[in-house]
């Protein structure tokens, strides 16, 4: 049994992987924000519009390839590309200067040491493009940064003096000191390495719980990136610790998207980046940790809402499944007992009618007939779902029962003089139940689909009801999260029913293990 369980669980890994790929492909159906056809033209006209469009694309990782990234871009690659455009003075030069200013201090270790290799003309161009960074860091005067004659000399000197500050250990020390004793001077130290300190700041933001430190680090990060973190403050003066925690989380989310702008990949990172720095990789890593983003309807994170909805939906599904089985089994017994008599015929007719009725119709009838009240809030929807799903299960169970009753061992039992009831309950039922038990796993997706309809009719705020609100509100992230969750739960249900079947019937175990052996 252990061997079987392990195999079965391992066998689920590729399935889950496949499910994630399918759901990821579904995300590609969401219309992309307008592409940046001529970034330079837009940048020259309206830099702010350019930035929001670019940000929108990056939030969905549209700047990354889908599945494999042959050339993952890090701070070094981005800086070098920008320099190349600047030097060539081609149509991307404006964009390159903009990018370089955004990369900031993190790009300097890849720009300034190579200054000597550039032609004097190119050197001036690059030096002037660095001016916004210098202003942000608060080094050099207006005249030094913007004067073509002096800018080159300034940056060369800057690197001679400060190159030691642009090393990881040095920045780590500075941030550590800032966390222990804050002072203006230490904040200036960090400002002077600009975005180069972001990696350490983000690490510190993740670890620290101190509200003051978080606000201070957040201000430093905001200064370097030119981006402020906005927290929906619905209750001013409420829990401030909660608010600072949200600030830290917002920065983490931002860092997840923009990290590759500010860090340089080492050897192993470069290899893993081929997979992780892709749309699928980024999406999967987030989905696996329950980060589905924020709902555009109410600006709240999706995951907690999803869990609350899932509780209701799966409670509904579970109740309805349980009830269906509890009703279907006795009905099948009754049918088999009175086979081809009027009870059986009537029952068959009723079940056939139920079988052909749509779930939503049954639910609409229930919602009219049943009394409304808080006690029945989950009971009546579950009852409606049960009635709608009962028929196929009963019909299946009845035919399984009749099939088993035709077997030799049942005839033997009858020949021995065993009473009819005992034949049915003791001899036939156990064997006839087995296929129906496995069916539970296969039926789960159908039950979940039925739950969606019933929730909408009864206005039960489960996954289905909220999904339809999400359709109206264009909350695509919610829909993606919902379909991923339902598919994963269905797979889990299938595994559980397989395990249950194997526990009941050793032949299935052997069959499965043998089949796996020949396939491998």
């Amino acid at each position, binding site marked *: 049994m252990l061997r079987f369980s392990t195999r079965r669980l391992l066998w689920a890994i590729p*399935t889950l992987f496949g499910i994630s790929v399918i759901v990821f492909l579904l995300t590609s159906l969401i219309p992309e924000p307008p592409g940046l056809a001529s970034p330079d033209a837009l940048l020259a006209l309206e830099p702010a519009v350019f930035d929001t469009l670019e940000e929108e694309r990056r939030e969905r990782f549209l700047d990354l390839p889908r599945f494999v990234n042959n050339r993952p871009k890090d701070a070094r690659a981005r800086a070098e590309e920008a320099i190349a455009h600047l030097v060539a003075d081609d149509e991307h030069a404006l964009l390159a200067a903009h990018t370089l200013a955004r990369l900031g201090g993190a790009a300097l270790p890849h720009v300034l040491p190579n200054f000597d290799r550039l032609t004097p003309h190119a050197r001036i161009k690059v030096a002037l493009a660095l001016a916004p960074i210098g202003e942000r860091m608060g080094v050099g005067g207006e005249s030094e940064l913007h004067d073509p004659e002096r800018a080159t000399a300034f940056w060369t000197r800057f690197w001679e003096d400060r190159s030691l500050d642009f090393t990881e250990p040095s920045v780590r020390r500075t941030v550590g000191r800032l966390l222990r004793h804050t002072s203006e001077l230490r904040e200036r130290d960090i400002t002077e390495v600009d975005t180069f300190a972001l990696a350490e700041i983000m690490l510190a933001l993740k670890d620290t719980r101190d509200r003051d430190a978080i606000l201070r680090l957040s201000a430093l990060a905001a200064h370097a990136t030119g981006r402020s973190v906005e927290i929906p403050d619905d209750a001013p003066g409420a829990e401030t610790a909660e608010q600072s925690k949200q600030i830290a989380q917002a920065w983490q989310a931002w860092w997840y998207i923009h990290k590759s702008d500010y860090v340089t990949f080492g050897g192993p990172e470069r290899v893993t980046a081929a997979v992780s720095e892709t749309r699928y990789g980024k999406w999967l890593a987030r989905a696996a940790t329950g980060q589905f983003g924020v709902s555009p309807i109410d600006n709240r994170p999706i995951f907690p809402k999803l869990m609350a909805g899932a509780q209701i939906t799966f409670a509904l599904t579970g109740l309805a499944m349980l009830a269906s089985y509890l009703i279907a089994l006795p009905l099948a017994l009754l049918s088999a007992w009175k086979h081809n008599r009027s009870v059986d015929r009537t029952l068959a007719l009723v079940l056939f*009618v139920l079988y*052909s009725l749509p779930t*939503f119709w049954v639910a*609409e009838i229930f919602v*009219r007939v049943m009394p409304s009240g808080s006690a029945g809030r989950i009971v009546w929807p579950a009852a409606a779902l049960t009635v709608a799903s009962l028929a196929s299960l009963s019909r299946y169970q009845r035919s399984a029962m009749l099939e088993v009753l035709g077997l030799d061992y049942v005839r033997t039992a009858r020949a021995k003089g065993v009473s009819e009831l005992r034949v049915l309950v003791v001899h036939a039922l156990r064997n006839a139940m087995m296929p129906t038990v496995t069916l539970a796993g296969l039926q789960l997706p*159908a039950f979940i689909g039925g739950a969606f*309809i019933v929730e909408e009719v009864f206005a039960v705020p489960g996954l289905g009801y909220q999904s339809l609100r999400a359709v109206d509100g264009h909350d695509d992230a919610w829909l993606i999260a919902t*379909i991923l969750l339902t598919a994963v739960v269905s797979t889990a249900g299938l595994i559980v029913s397989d395990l249950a079947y194997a526990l009941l019937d050793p032949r299935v175990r052997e069959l499965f293990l043998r089949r796996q052996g020949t396939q491998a």
Partner: protein
Amino acid sequence: MRTEAPPSSNFAPVPAAGVRQAIGRLRQSPLAFAGAIVLACFAFFAVFADLFASDFPLLCRFRNATYVLPNVTHPPALAEFNELRAAGQLSPGDWAINPPIPFGAAQESKDEALLPPLSRRAHLLGTDGHGRDVLARLVHGTRTSFGVALFAVIAFIGVGSVLGALGGFLGGIVDGFVSRTIEILSAFPTLVLVLVVQALLPNPTRTTLFAAIALARWPEIARLVRAEVLVVLSNDYIVAARALGASPWRVLVRHIIPNARAPIVVAAMFGVAQVVLIEASLSFLRVGVPPGIASWGEMLSELRDYSSAWWLLVVPGLAIFAVVSSLNLVGEALRDTLDPRLRM
């Protein structure tokens, strides 16, 4: 009614003896025969929906020109005709012969909203909240239901049987891939998958609807066909055919396909019933057919705004029930004849 009976046994070349016998048997089972007749009637309404219900006349004369079947062709010259006729300003020489239900499926009239059935002679089954004629919508909803079901079933039976047969016949990597895909796609609840696809697409249409349904349903057919092919392959006559030097192609075409055909026909019948239900459910949730297209599910969805209009519950509900139960009856009769192993 008798004239619209299902294809009888002398109906031009019938491919296999099995299928021909099944259709013959269908006439002997009264329930299945009744089901087939109901289906034929609905199919008739679906095909000629415009002739039964349209706001354009069947034949009319307007401004010295005669138009034949303008309800099908919708000539631009007639654009003003309805307005003028409603205002009673037609010139004396103009006339029109109206279809039995002189309303279009989308034709609204504010002052005739929510009329119960039989309250006016014009609106036999009443009107909905927008003043649209229920009977006209029912007729056009038949077309939507049958159209989506037909295309979806053709698509998923096609894809499912080809992939399932390939998997079962070729084995190895192909089979591994097909089985895996089947397993993965089966994990998605059909309704949720179609709902999400329709919601995420920038402009969902009837085409995307049936494509999404086909995407969600083909694994079931593929599983069935694959199993069937594996069963057929294990028979001695396949070994014999191979021993006699039959090529894999010949084995597939002459031995496997004819034997695997019966379960596919049965599955197609039940498949239509399922798709009718799925389409109705999705349209009921207002994520199925795009707004403006008549559909039974969409008619029922009006109940949420006008919950006292019982006829909006009963009329489309009965239509769905009639079609689905007829399909199930015919499907079960076919299955009992073609594939007694699956008999319930």
